[in-house]
């Protein structure tokens, strides 16, 4: 009952001006960003993060989360209409969605994608609200040793699970940790790796790093990977054709329910994210759906599965970030950047000290999903037109937004140079399959990890046994150890198998 009361309070807040305007703004930008090929949720939120600086924390989060889930809807448009998935999470949607488009059923594909996204997002929000409250209550008793162990586990999981090769993830984590040490050491007051540069005393600006790695690097990527939009966009989408018929609803509803649950559970796991959620739920549906033979050939259940799973995963991914302060995906790392920009550190205390922010955010997501449903139905032809119109001016405009957004933060050209440097670095690393998320995560979590480690040792009088003597910390460390062992063993098995294949 208490939860419902908080939620009603949240609705009261967000249905008033200016928050209702922020919701509409966020989801509209999200849809536009999602519909533009090459600009995904990560780069969209990263580029627009500095623009929310003038708002309060609630407003900033409402806009950024609106962009986040708005992008998921927007991605569907390009996936279905052009076979260009804006992000990897929409690749699965494109398989059946584009096939349906070729069969003249683009309206039904987009309609089902819109409704299944709405249902997936709305149901998973209920899971998010209840589960996050439970985790926050559990984590509120964490002391420094538990926090250190938790960060260690989070870093290991995310670094190992992101990208193709765990070893590259761990390397990126190490670089992120190093970047996180630059600046004045908070305990001893010593300057570390500042090279006597006054701009580095407070450390490297997080927003500049995020915009560079996720925003500007995409500009460079799109400069060499041109999207061929041409005239392939279809004009067959109108409101009448977007409503699935009863037969389609009947066959898709069980799929949507299963995929929502699977998507949410995978979304919660650090490092897994929406892409794995869609792939996993699609493969389950391919086995259990009544229409499984048509998967890949234009099955509406395929679209329903992918869309409900990826929107559900979006809400699942917010749980570790909001309750423990550990982002499990790149977008939630950017959202964490928004919290840090306002001097707030997410975690269990957030639910006690700034509960109004959390509940307003949850309420805004309900309202935002409803706004998106209306926007999707009414404006898809307009978005498609915009997509074709903007294909040439998009990249310079994104580059300018990156530059001006980062400059506006501190009125500092130094931040712009940092952003450009990290943009180039991000482009190179991504090109050679070095994952960026562990780098960002290492950078963000390093100061807390270091402080927690030092506080723990101060508490124990330099005794490292404190991490083992405390039960929660011990459990977290055992999980971390088991994960490392599992990674090593699976690598050994893999290389033995490939050796046997080569010999055989």
């Amino acid at each position: 009952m208490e939860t419902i009361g908080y939620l009603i309070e949240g609705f009261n807040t967000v249905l008033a001006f200016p928050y209702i305007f922020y919701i509409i703004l966020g989801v509209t930008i999200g849809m536009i960003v999602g519909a533009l090929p090459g600009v995904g949720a990560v780069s969209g939120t990263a580029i627009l993060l500095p623009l929310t600086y003038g708002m309060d924390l609630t407003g900033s989060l409402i806009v950024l989360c609106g962009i986040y889930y708005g992008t998921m809807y927007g991605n569907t448009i390009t996936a279905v209409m052009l076979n260009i998935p804006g992000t990897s999470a929409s690749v699965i949607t494109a398989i059946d969605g584009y096939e349906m488009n070729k069969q003249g059923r683009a309206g039904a594909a987009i309609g089902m994608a819109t409704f299944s996204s709405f249902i997936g997002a709305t149901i998973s929000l209920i899971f998010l609200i209840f589960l996050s409250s439970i985790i926050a209550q559990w984590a509120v008793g964490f002391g420094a040793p538990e926090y250190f162990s938790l960060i260690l586990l989070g870093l290991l999981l995310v670094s190992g699970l992101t990208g193709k090769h765990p070893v590259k993830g761990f390397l990126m984590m190490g670089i992120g940790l190093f970047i996180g040490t630059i600046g004045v050491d908070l305990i001893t007051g010593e300057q570390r790796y500042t090279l006597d540069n006054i701009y580095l005393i407070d450390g490297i600006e997080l927003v500049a790093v995020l915009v560079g790695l996720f925003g500007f690097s995409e500009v460079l990527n799109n400069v060499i990977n041109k999207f061929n939009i041409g005239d392939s966009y279809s004009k067959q989408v109108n409101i009448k054709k977007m409503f699935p018929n009863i037969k389609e609803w009947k066959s898709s509803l069980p799929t949507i329910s299963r995929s929502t649950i699977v998507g949410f559970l995978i979304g919660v796991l650090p490092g897994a994210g929406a892409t794995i959620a869609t792939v996993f739920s699609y493969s389950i549906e391919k086995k259990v759906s009544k229409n499984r033979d048509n998967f890949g050939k234009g099955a509406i259940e395929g679209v329903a599965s992918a869309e409900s799973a990826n929107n559900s995963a979006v809400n699942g991914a917010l749980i570790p970030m909001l309750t423990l302060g550990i982002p499990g995906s790149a977008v939630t790392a950017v959202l964490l950047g928004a919290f840090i920009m306002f001097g707030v550190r997410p975690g269990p205390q957030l639910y006690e000290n700034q509960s109004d922010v959390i509940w307003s955010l949850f309420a805004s997501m309900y309202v935002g999903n409803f706004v998106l449903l209306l926007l999707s139905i009414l404006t898809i032809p307009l978005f498609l037109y915009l997509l074709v119109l903007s294909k040439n001016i998009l990249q310079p405009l994104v580059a300018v937004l990156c530059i001006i957004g980062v400059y506006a933060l501190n009125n500092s050209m130094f931040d712009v140079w940092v952003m450009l440097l990290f943009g180039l670095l991000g482009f190179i690393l991504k090109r050679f399959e070095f994952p960026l998320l562990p780098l960002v995560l290492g950078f963000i979590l390093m100061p807390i990890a270091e402080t927690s480690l030092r506080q723990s040792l101060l508490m124990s009088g330099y005794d490292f046994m404190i991490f083992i003597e405390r039960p929660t910390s011990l459990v977290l460390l055992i999980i971390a150890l088991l994960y490392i062992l599992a990674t090593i063993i699976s690598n050994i098995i893999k290389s033995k198998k490939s050796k046997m294949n080569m010999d055989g």
Partner: protein
Amino acid sequence: MEYKEPSKINRFPNYLILGCTLMLGILISTTSLLFYDYLTKDTLGAGFSTFWIGVLLIVISGLSLVQTKRGKFDSDENQRVSVEKVKKIIFTMIICIVCMSLVKLIGMAISITLLIFLFLHFLEGQKLIRSILVSITCSIVVFFIFDFIFKVQFPNSLIGF
């Protein structure tokens, strides 16, 4: 059917990146010991974490170099780099660096206009007149948003904007 030889995997970029991280690791761990305290009277010194981060980088870079040599990363599609693409990236970076270097001299407004124009005309291959018109229009819109709505103070040029 014509036989197509598979394109050769170029391991050099991986070696280069891993070589850099290895050097960085060595640099961090040695400078940590040389310039910062490893331990203080009460707690860990400023050099403790950085030393171990350096060691971590050395170990993982070394391991990755061995794996690169064994061809473990060869399946990565993006390892094929064309000279044309590298040129485009260098040109994009030069445009950005030149325009940002000119900010103090010609102001942010003109620098941004110049950046959009160079991007459109040389990278996107747009016609001269269209590039000029679009760059001016985009700059005006962007400046209206940031200057008038967000009240951001941009560096001005000698002529006042």
